């Protein structure tokens, strides 16, 4: 049965697994750049997780293209509609860009991009210390940008879930029928 008010199951599975992965990645990333004792273990985790996120983001875009998301509520103010649209472009863009910038910067620095055991990704850029330095800085700036966008996304999602209660949050949730527009709640 298809339900045009909700994301399809693959979209919801991808959303929540990637939410956990990306938040974990941001915490690993910000921790590893200052840590001495755990630096190596965190970097060793950061590389394969980054590739996993890149692959999942491609899957997610393909699924989104095949099954477009449900429409936003009609009574949503125009600025919020625009903000939602723009923030999703940023989120998808960074989901793809962060791993690619990471891979490219390690390539430019001629670090082997080791994943697990003997598996190493090939370089995607020629060796260049200056390009590395620039991409390394970009990786940080984009990571802070991604974290800020995710905070805004969480805040907006909770506003929809707890205050507006307009079905937007429910469209991504696993429990069906909760707080969807078809089941009006308190005192409308």
């Amino acid at each position, binding site marked *: 049965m298809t339900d045009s008010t909700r994301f399809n199951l693959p979209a919801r599975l991808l959303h929540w697994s990637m939410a956990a992965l990306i*938040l974990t990645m*941001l*915490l*690993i990333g*910000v*921790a590893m*750049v*200052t*840590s*001495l*004792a*755990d*630096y*190596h*273990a965190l*970097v060793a985790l950061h590389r394969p997780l980054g590739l996993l996120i890149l692959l999942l983001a491609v899957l997610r875009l393909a699924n989104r293209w095949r099954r477009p998301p449900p429409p936003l509520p009609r*009574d*949503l*103010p125009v600025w*919020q509609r625009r903000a939602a649209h723009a923030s999703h472009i940023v989120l998808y863009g960074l989901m793809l860009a962060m791993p690619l910038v990471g891979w490219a910067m390690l390539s430019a*620095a*001629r*670090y*082997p*991009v*080791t994943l697990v*055991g*003997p598996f*190493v*990704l*090939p370089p995607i850029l020629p*060796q260049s*210390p*200056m390009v*590395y*330095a*620039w991409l*390394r*800085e970009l990786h940080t700036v984009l990571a802070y940008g991604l*974290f800020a966008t*995710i*905070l805004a996304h*969480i*805040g907006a999602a*909770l*506003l929809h879930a*707890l*205050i*507006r*209660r*307009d079905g937007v949050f429910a469209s991504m949730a696993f429990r069906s029928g909760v707080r969807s527009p078809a089941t009006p*709640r*308190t*005192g*409308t």
Partner: protein
Amino acid sequence: MTLLHHLTGAPPGMTTRALMLRLAGIGAVLAGTAGAFTYAGGWLAPDALTSARVVDRFEQVNGPHPGFRRNHAKGLCVAGTFASNGAGARLSKASVFSAGRVTPVEGRVALAGGQPYAADAAATVRSLALRFRLPEGEEWRTGMNNIPVFPVRTPEAFYEQLLAAKPDPATGKPDPERLKAFFALHPESAKAAALIKARTITAGFADSTFRSLNAFRFVASDGRTTPVRWAFVPERRPEPGSFAQEAQADKNALFDTLAAELRQEPRHWHLVVTLGQASDATDDATLPWPSDRDSVHVGTLTLTGAAPEDAGPCRDINFDPLVLPDGIAPSDDPLLSARSAAYARSFTRRAGEEKMPSAVAGTSPNGASL
């Protein structure tokens, strides 16, 4: 219906109190998430030692030398091959140890310290860094020194020692009181310093033995792991003593001599892997392992040429000791992860800086060119 209802899009039936509570809840979730990020990034522990602070201290002690490594700043690129004799294959599944395998190697010889233009001195610690390029993109990088043990056990002690051993501008030597205070706090470093001071200093790079100092683990194809330390031991017998006179004429005599020797003929080192036993410390690089431990000669490094850093392949490589192939793994030595972190920080800083030519041209002062 309040302004707050209007702003948040809350249904009119929601009481202001309920709305405020929910807003506070949302704020708490966001604050918690931001707090976790802040905590993970170390902003709540500004006194913790970080890779940035370690590299800052190098810059503080040595002064600014943009474009150069913050440690082992003065160096020369070398190149050659490593030929495995197969004896290491039972200890490690890394393909570099397969019988008959010849692996191309790029490397760098250098002097410890953050002064890229310092004159060569016999007692300065010499280093050899190597990058083995294995098939399928795997690499093994290692940075080794010509000393028997490492002077400190932890990254924190390393950080303190950098400052304690900083030369006093008045005397050009470290303040003895400060060094005494450091050794009093770190008796393991006092013992290590005695071993380092007592080492035999050979004539040059070509007859120096370079040691991993930190322990690693070799992982065999059946999963068995062996704690190891390794050393590159020169094939030719060391010739002590001839360095001091040459130093008068040429500030880069150690490097220029090696470059001249490599122009004449290749130089060979045996890779000797010492096998640790359960009682041997793998987390304390200041402690030597007992001298009766088994060791295995697993292959021969042949260096065939040298090139100055600005023309060679080594300047823009970070010889991170934890770039390891499958089959070599880190030990529990706390210095390893810290070295990896500090090298990465130093590399990132210099990568973005304008590069100056190295003091070492690899030519002798009478003008013979490479």
